[in-house]
């Protein structure tokens, strides 16, 4: 379809176009785009505090992006990352609160509980797809709502005593790092980013280096040939959803054990899971791409908080920029077409 160069060029051009059109919108609305963007950049990476906050913001985006990308590589569309993230969040906090163990056991156990919960949540649409060909998009969307309300119920009536938040997880189950916090002038940065990067490496290893990944990729590209070659297509569908859900659940655990340290009642979806779809799309569904796209999203979202204060440009502008970037990536054929024209013209 597209060659290697195009695969890299298309997201890069999309980002540039998104920023340019964002600038035009700013000019039309009577703002100075240079001031706007420099405020945004300052708010994202301007000093060590902002940088810490941005990195903290990037962490769940990486996991959510990996989750969507993993399913996508097997030809599945996991819209349920949001729900899987929420159940991962509550499961990790719950295990964090329920046990009293040394940190070497307690923290990994809490993190894995988040992964397991996410995996379980994704197993349901996986098995329904494999067994009954129920479309995973429908099921995962519905599972999001179930997750939201289930988690709220657990927070209020099971884990806490009719409170809006749970207690904080003890230090033995916390990802918080006084060292990283001091380094970044007491931002909320925590160890999660290292886990997210490790997750990206694991993502790459599973897909590119293992026989299981070979099957997943093969099924993603061509189910008929995979069946012909003796692969179990249905088992791969379930497996892919489970791994995808585990990544999403880990993203939730990062929020539960790191960013916040507790779980709370969500009046609406966090949006991280849905942003994961955009991150995966922009990142071309590969590990390094997801990390870079997550970084861009983190920078834009974090910088957007400071932008109105510094330059008066409203936060919503970032939403416009992101939407335009996604528009161009999604309609990548337009860019590919222009690139081709450009090449022909050069000849």
């Amino acid at each position, binding site marked *: 379809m597209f060659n290697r160069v195009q695969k890299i060029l298309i997201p890069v051009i999309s980002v540039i176009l998104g920023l340019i059109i964002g600038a035009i919108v700013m000019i039309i609305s009577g703002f100075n785009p240079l001031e706007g963007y420099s405020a945004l950049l300052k708010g994202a990476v301007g000093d060590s505090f902002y940088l810490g906050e941005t990195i903290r913001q990037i962490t769940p985006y990486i996991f959510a992006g990996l989750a969507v990308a993993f399913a996508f590589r097997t030809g599945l569309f996991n819209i349920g990352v949001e729900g899987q993230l929420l159940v991962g969040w509550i499961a990790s906090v719950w295990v964090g609160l329920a046990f009293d163990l040394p940190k070497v056991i307690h923290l990994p156990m809490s993190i894995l509980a988040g992964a397991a919960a996410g995996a379980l949540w994704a197993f349901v649409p996986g098995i329904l797809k494999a067994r009954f060909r129920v479309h995973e998009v429908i099921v995962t969307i519905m599972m999001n709502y179930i997750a939201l309300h289930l988690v709220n119920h657990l927070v209020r009536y099971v884990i806490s005593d009719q409170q809006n938040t749970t207690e904080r997880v003890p230090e033995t189950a916390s990802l918080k790092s006084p060292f990283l916090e001091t380094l970044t002038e007491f931002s909320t940065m925590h160890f999660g980013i290292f886990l997210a990067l490790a997750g990206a490496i694991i993502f790459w290893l599973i897909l590119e280096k293992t*026989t299981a*990944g070979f099957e997943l*990729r093969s099924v993603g590209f*061509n189910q*008929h*040939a995979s069946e*012909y*070659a*003796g692969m*179990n297509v249905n088992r791969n569908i379930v497996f892919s959803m489970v791994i995808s859900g585990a990544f999403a659940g880990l993203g939730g655990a990062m929020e539960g054990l790191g960013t916040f340290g507790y779980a709370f009642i969500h009046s609406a979806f966090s949006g991280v899971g849905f942003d994961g779809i955009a991150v995966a799309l922009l990142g071309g569904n590969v590990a390094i791409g997801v990390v870079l796209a997550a970084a861009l999203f983190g920078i834009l979202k974090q910088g957007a908080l400071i932008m109105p204060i510094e330059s008066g440009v409203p936060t919503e502008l970032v939403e416009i920029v992101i939407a335009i970037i996604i528009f161009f990536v999604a309609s990548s054929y337009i860019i590919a077409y222009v690139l081709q024209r450009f090449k022909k013209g050069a000849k």
Partner: protein
Amino acid sequence: MEYVIEMLNIRKEFPGIVANDNITLQLKKGEIHALLGENGAGKSTLMNVLFGLYQPEQGEIKVKGKKVNITNPNIANDLGIGMVHQHFMLVDPFTVTENIVLGMEPKKGVTIDMKKAVKDVKEISDRYGLKVDPNAKIAEISVGMQQRVEILKTLYRGAEILIFDEPTAVLTPQEIKELTQIFKTLISEGKSIILITHKLKEIIEVCDRVTVIRKGVGIDTLDVEGTTPNELASLMVGREVLFRTEKKTAVPKEAVLEITKLNVKDARGVNAVKDLSITLRAGEIVGIAGVDGNGQSELIEAITGLRKISSGSIKLSGKELSSLKPRKITEAGIGHIPQDRHKHGLVLDFPIGENMVLQTYYQTPFSKMSMLNNKEINKKAKKLIAEFDVRTPSEYTEARALSGGNQQKAIIGREVDRDPDLLIAAQPTRGLDVGAIEFIHQRLIDQRDKGKAVLLLSFELDEIMNVSDRIAVIYEGNIIAIVDPKETTEQELGLLMAGSKRKEAGEDTHV
């Protein structure tokens, strides 16, 4: 004589190939005119030119004596040309009436006047004896009925000339009889028909005249009366010297594949393979000859485990295969060069290297502790690329980037290299050039000489005749005859494939 359609000296080229070279076809009013030719002879191209889907490079088309320029199907429609496609173009969840009026709905204000539509459809269907239930959903009616809906669609649009593309390929014998009757009614109502086919029997039965094309060239147009199936067959196949592959006499040994009383349903749930029995021995190539759609695909899918069987048994060297998963069947010793190399044979987005281990990636040395060993995989790929002369920049090149012939060589390399006891080759040379065909035939014969069994499925009679040691003719899901290629002729095979009894065929060939 009045011609309703005249296609004069039509030439249509595609990059690297002349699909139609100076073909003339003249259709008289009120006749059924057959367009006869082998697969790939250029029949469909010619009809697509008439229907406005392709523009010819040379030649002209006249409708009722007037020169016309058909640049798109709408113009063809306006000229009264209607086409009944081989693969129906119907909207399944819609009713018969909705499908027929689709795009030309009678309107009442801004809404569709369904009452009038149903009435119109009833009227046409009564007039032409095409019995259908106007309110039935397409998904709920038989294939024969669906075909009637297609015919009604063209009639509703006022077609005077109807083109049928292989209309009997999907029909049951009973439905074929009914279709023949429909043809007669259409003619008596003043319509003219072009029938695209390669079934000789049909031509003799229903057609008035026949135009034969071979390899894109118009060979002859003759009256059906006074011609014989043999004459038509030889015109269709051609008399030029056939390329014969050198091979020693086969030395068949023990039975490798034993199929008994096999029944398999196709995707629509119709019995495609019926009580089929056949035995393949080690050291022989058995060719399956038959017209497309007579159960060949289902037979192969059943052997390879891709399709469930209804009853019967498939044994490989005595071991029952019919309940096994595809992987177990592959491991039992079956290699399969699939009919559709893009759908089943390759993962086009994978590099050639990974495609070369598509069935063996989990075995040593390609996998160690569940991790892929890319070094070994690429070593294997390199070896096969050299051995089977796959022209590719490297083993890292995506399979998509290779030409069809090289893709096919890669698949054959992969399958032959596993050295299976039974190698199934389904249309292994489709769309390939002469050099590649020769190479592939030689490889199949090499496997045979090594004492393996080879099952060859092909729609090319040349190929079947050249490569096989025995030819099994499949018709309507059953093997109706097994013949020796040295003792048969293409005419006889053609007749058998069209469902003639062995005896009749024998008599005909002794003329």
